[in-house]
């Protein structure tokens, strides 16, 4: 018998009371949404220790990143898929133009998202992602942090010490 079979046999022998899968539509629809998700997102990014800057569609992310962190030496700029208002997360997938480790090993990480991409909460985030598998995906909210020494909050535990989010304004359709 393989170990998997042995485990499954034990699980079947356990005969737990069977519970149905709950319908999550109620908790999802009851969940807090924001009149101004963009403002909530900005507040949440700041709350997580990050910075936010709104830029125009045609602005250079490099220049914007530099203006956010003029002192930074090692800036990684990455394109995010969308933001989450309730917690200031930016969702990213496997980068195509650099190794994944750049998200973490860079001293400063600047994430670029379209400002209309912001969803209210993690329910909406996962609804947007669906069940499709992309190999890798990560939500990042602010800089790496720890409070492992006496609960004192310190930024830059292992990952990026500084994190900024550039919110790219959407291009108005031509009249």
């Amino acid at each position: 018998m393989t170990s998997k079979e042995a485990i499954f046999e034990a699980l079947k022998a356990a005969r737990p009371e069977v519970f149905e899968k709950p319908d999550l539509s109620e908790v999802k629809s009851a969940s807090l949404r924001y009149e101004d998700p963009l403002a909530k997102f900005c507040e949440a990014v700041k709350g997580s220790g990050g910075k936010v800057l709104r830029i125009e569609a045609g602005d250079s992310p490099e220049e914007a990143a530099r203006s956010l962190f003029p002192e930074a030496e090692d800036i990684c700029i990455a394109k995010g898929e969308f933001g989450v208002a309730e917690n200031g997360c930016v969702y990213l997938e496997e980068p195509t133009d650099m190794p994944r480790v750049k998200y973490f090993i860079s001293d400063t990480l600047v994430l670029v998202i379209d400002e209309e991409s912001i969803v209210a909460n993690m329910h909406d985030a996962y609804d947007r992602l669906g069940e499709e598998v992309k190999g890798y995906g990560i939500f990042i909210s602010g800089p790496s942090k720890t409070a492992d020494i006496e609960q004192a909050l310190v930024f830059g535990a292992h990952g990026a010490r500084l994190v900024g989010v550039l919110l790219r304004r959407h291009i108005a359709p031509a009249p």
Partner: protein
Amino acid sequence: MKKIDYAKVDWQDETLWLVRGKRDRLAKSLPEWEKLRDAASRIKLYSTSHLPELLDQFETKARANGAIVHWAKDAEEYRRIIGDLLQSHSVKRFVKSKSMLSEECELRPYLESLGIETIETDLGERIIQLMGSRPSHIVLPAIHVKREEVGALFEKEMGTEKGNCDPTYLTHAARKNLREYFLSADAGMTGGNFAVASTGEVVVCTNEGNADMGTSLPPLQIAAFGIDKIVPDRESLGVFTRLLARTATGQPITTYTTHYSAPRPGAEFHIVIVDNGRSRILADPEHRKLLNCLRCGGCMNTCPVYRRLGGYAYSYFIPGPVGINLGVMADPERCKADLSACSLCHSCSALCPAKVDLAEQIYRSRQHYCSSAKKKLLSKGMGFVMGAPWRLETTLAAGPAGMKALKALGASWGKGRDFPDIASQKTIKKLRNDK
């Protein structure tokens, strides 16, 4: 009887209460909070009662994603699978992030016995590793350690400035020190906060980014988790990622919530799914809901006993309310003494994000295991007196003589507290007849 460390008790209690306070503020800022807890509990009950099909679905998906899936019945098999993997890949240096499963299965000593340098990369875990100690809390492993102790430790281990115990300075010293290990590691490992059946992905939640560093460089990645970590789909995952960090540390979400499904380009991704007693918990109707546990540590932060005793007062490697219950399930003879470390205040049950009936389970376990002979004597004595009204009447009527016997039996009451006076029973008789 559990001992209090008076040098640390108030500091530790206040520090942990602060974490609970942060959690309260976030919980109270979401009007849907109680609905979320209810949903989390129901998803977990569904998941743990459908484990074979969800685990099967997870494995099929994970394989299709390119991961290699292993199954471990117990701690020994878990250690062997990981040890064999590391040896077959000629791993000399191994970085791991915090995993309670690895503590449960005592992975590190085993790997070290194989000559594999195994580095804990979570700051708290690293402090604990360097101290040669064990975590005293599952989310805040070094919560009992004072900054001065960390300063002295890092001075010895990393050559930091003598006497400098500033947390920022020390954290950045550890960052620099551990980065060497990340850059030279041959393999990296994480636990798993959630395993999503519908996608075959393992979800890891951290604040420091150590799990992400450790899995982004080496050619071999391992993720290991218990069968109770399975959730059906991403829709369900939304409920848990909203609850976990809010309860654990009072943050709206951890800094990094990473979803691993496929191997990194050029790397291998191995997943180890572990039972190690979980199917036995599932088979016990009185304790089944323990499998709902998210390992958030919320029950520790709210427990008035844990906050004052600290994690080392408990026999099992997981302390606090959930640890008492898990310990009694894993090794009752060794852990039954911990059943006394609970005043049955039910704060843990009222707070648990997945509604584990923690206090109720402690009550039930006490019916099977007795933590002390003295308590048994007291309880039997009380049962005898209460067994017949005349015995109670006689005892109470005995007045000072009865009080003397009571004081002898419950002598420890008198240390630090005065005994109450036993009331004259004439009043009671009068009240009863005075209609």
